[in-house]
């Protein structure tokens, strides 16, 4: 264990709250207004705390001598104290009222709805996110997983559902969280003001792999987004070289097809993430691993080591076949 005292000290002040998944490092109007509200609250509350502590400190001086009967009170002092306490209680009420007012104003702004926006259904599963892009034209809808691409500067509507237990969709740098609840649908809107990759993570305890249930939001300019969308709508590209062709054979003769879909082929499993364009994704296993050849192979060989309890089973596969399978999956761009 490395004790990095210097960096610990530098992280303690709130100024150090930057980060990939920080509610104080915001890049969208929702999260930015929440950050502003947070600083308003924090300022007022800190002032209240400091004043209370100062009051307590002043109170600790002895103001009666040891001989005084503890039951004796001075009527004038008692009146002053009553007035002071009553005033302080009044001030508390005013503060609380002000905070409630701020809160309500920001709440209305946060949950305003825009019409005719890109709508994406995000379904929580143990322990990954299914992402369905909706479109008025049914042939332009498609399914992907754990990675949500959005156009920069536009509000996007997310319909949140769950297939098994309760999950909670949370990308702190863009927007507050909202639960995915079985049997219900919740809706939030979020927007990214800048190009970038934003990380989010399930926030409601959902079982063994709650810790490894992340997703990425990839915000890119409108044109790039449309390109990506068209590419995602397309079926899987057929294997291009010999290794990929033999890898496809491995895929179709192994248990993979029982759970996973590859559009344009006969693989139509609905239990696990859609793999049609898995090769183009940034991460594997719901934001747990970088999408590299080595990680992909490690994940296929022993998913239970990386995510103990995951629904992906341990699979007997020989090294040659594994190599071919990885080539095939990598080719699914």
């Amino acid at each position, binding site marked *: 264990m490395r004790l990095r005292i210097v960096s610990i000290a530098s992280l303690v002040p709130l100024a150090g709250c930057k980060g990939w998944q920080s509610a104080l490092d915001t890049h969208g109007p929702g999260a930015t207004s929440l950050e502003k509200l947070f600083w308003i*609250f924090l300022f007022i509350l800190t002032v209240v705390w400091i004043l209370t502590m100062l009051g307590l400190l002043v109170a600790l001086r002895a103001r009666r001598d040891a001989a005084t009967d503890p039951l004796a009170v001075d009527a004038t002092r008692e009146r002053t104290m009553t007035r002071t306490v009553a005033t302080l209680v009044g001030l508390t009420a005013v503060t609380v009222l002000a905070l409630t007012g701020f809160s309500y104003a920001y709440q209305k702004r946060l949950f305003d709805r825009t019409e005719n926006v890109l709508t994406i259904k995000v379904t929580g599963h143990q322990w990954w996110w299914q992402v369905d892009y909706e479109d008025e034209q049914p042939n332009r809808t498609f399914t992907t997983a754990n990675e949500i691409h959005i156009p920069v500067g536009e509000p996007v509507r997310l319909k949140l559902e769950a297939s098994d237990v309760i999950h909670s969709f949370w990308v702190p740098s863009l927007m507050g969280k909202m639960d995915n609840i079985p049997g219900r649908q919740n809706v939030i809107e979020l927007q990214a003001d800048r190009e970038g990759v934003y990380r989010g993570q399930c926030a409601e305890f959902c079982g063994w792999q709650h810790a490894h249930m992340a997703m990425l939001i990839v915000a890119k300019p409108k044109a790039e987004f449309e390109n990506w969308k068209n590419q995602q709508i397309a079926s899987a590209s057929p294997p291009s070289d010999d290794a990929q062709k033999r890898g496809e054979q491995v895929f179709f003769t192994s248990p993979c097809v029982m759970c996973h879909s590859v559009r344009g082929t006969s693989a139509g499993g609905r239990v696990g993430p859609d793999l049609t364009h898995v090769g183009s994704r940034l991460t594997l296993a719901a934001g747990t691993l970088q999408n590299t050849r080595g990680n992909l192979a490690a994940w296929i060989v022993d998913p239970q080591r990386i995510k103990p309890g995951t629904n992906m089973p341990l699979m007997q596969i020989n090294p040659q076949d594994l190599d071919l399978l990885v080539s095939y999956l990598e080719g699914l761009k």
Partner: protein
Amino acid sequence: MSEAYAAPDPKELRDHQIGGPELTARLAKTWGTEKGLLGALSTVDHKIIGRRYIITAFLFLFLAGLAAVAMRLQLARPESRLIGPDLYNQLFTMHGTTMMFLFAVPVMEAFAVYLVPLMVGTRNIAFPRLNAFSYYVYVFGGLMIWVAFMLNIGADVGWFAYVPLSGPEFSPGKRADIWAQMITFTEVSALAVAVEIVVTVLKQRAPGMTLDRIPLFVWSVFITSFLIIFAMPAVMIASTFLILDRLIGTHIFNPAEGGDALLWQHLFWFFGHPEVYIIFLPATGMVSAIITTFSRRRTFGYLALVLSLIATGFLSFGLWVHHMFTTGLPQLGASFFTASSMLIAIPNGIQIFCWIATLWDGRPIFRTPLLFVLGFFFIFVAGGLSGLILASVPLDTQVHDTYFVVAHFHYVLIGGAVFPLLGAVYYWYPKIVGRLLDERIGKWHFWLAFVGFNVGFFPMHITGLMGMPRRIYTYLPEMGWGNLNLLSSVGTLVFFFSFVVFLWNVVSSAKSGAVAGDNPWDAGTLEWATSSPPPPQNFDRIPVVTNREPLWAEREKLPVATGLSVENRELIVSTVTEARADIRETSPEPSIWPLLAAIATGVTFIASIFTPWAVVWGSAIVGVALIAWFWPKGAKEDEA
């Protein structure tokens, strides 16, 4: 004022006919507990049971603390492989469940069981056999869940056990059933104690203890008891529904069959929020008692403090939705709960200001109990204020279910309940044990706890804002949470160590502490009017109360009421508001049947995890035990 309140029966020896050591000895024989194992298990003395309750609750505190240490070791580094997800989920479930259900609520009730009869000046708690029963039921519930954990069938769905995760489909096996049944055990015992406290306070107060002379600690546990009576049934219903879903195939929480997953959350938090005040209100009573004694001044704003307790009690039932702001409830409805949650700052503010005013006009004596109360101010006020952030619907969407919340409620519960509780242990230990705790070790204990706590828990506010969710067993190194988590782990370990120091103090002072005498702090309330530890009868003659702080008002000699039997367990039943002595009433004798009834109840509860038929045959054996327990023996007063 030593007049007899009832015409004495000439054949029976009464407490005005003898006096001095003879009276003490005879009463001690009448009210005492038999020697031997059977005697120990049959006892109905509230002090013996209260002491057992306190020790058991602290044992559970240590167990839950060990679970916390294990979690902090795992979280100290990113991607640590010390503890896997299975064990981690059990650990945080055991930690939360034990702290809330087996430590915090029982320990507050335990102090009430020990202190209330002494503070209101009576000889025993109302329904003393029920009291014994409640202790045994509590022990069995706690044993069940911890034995299950040791056998690796520990509950792993969180102390809140949200459905559908805790339902039959996603938690096969017996883990969630054990959790749900533990709730039933502890709720039965909590409800029993609540009823005893309500009756003791309303009907057994010493003559002259009018409503406005009731000590604030007694007021606080009295209000808390009503909270328990109204809040606990909600969670009992919830856990029963869960068991029904899991055991006999109902679909109360199954959305696929027309059930509702959110119903659980409403029922759970309708209990869960008042629960926080069930823990906190008795602590405010402890704070009031300690501040009054160590300020050398009567409490400022007694009426305001009592009314604040009542207001907090009422308001606590109107806040539960603030645990559900991210479930997508209608926005206007949710914002109502923002307002009500913020409103509770007002009665809490009144309490804080009245205490500070008492200190201000007093002469603070900085002994360990007061130090812990000052620590309470520092930590609890911070925690209460960060609660206002959680009360705001929009802000809650960012901090809900993150380490910010973990920091907040540890500030509230450790600052608001554990620090006053530790102060209370230092304050009342001499009464219970007869010796004072060591002051030097006490100061070490305080500073280690205070520094360890803040170093451990303050950084969690920041890790939460940096996006760290609760209940994750590990995190990636690139998240940047590693250093803050390491700091939290170091701090919480220091905090845990402070409890080892505390344990050392408690154990060593029991043998070698300074002898306390009746009233080592020169306090004003009745529990200090008797010897330390008190005799089985509590008081040789029942005191008559003329002031809120009777021992400060009557420094020479406390007036007493006489006429109670020396040979039978008699106590005074008084009127509700003015506490005029009303009738003499006999208090139940020791009995082994509460233990046997608790065993029957425990067998029924545990067996019903495995077969619903246990409820049927279990009712029969519980019925037999209860018949034996209540078998009429013909008390003397009835024959007359």
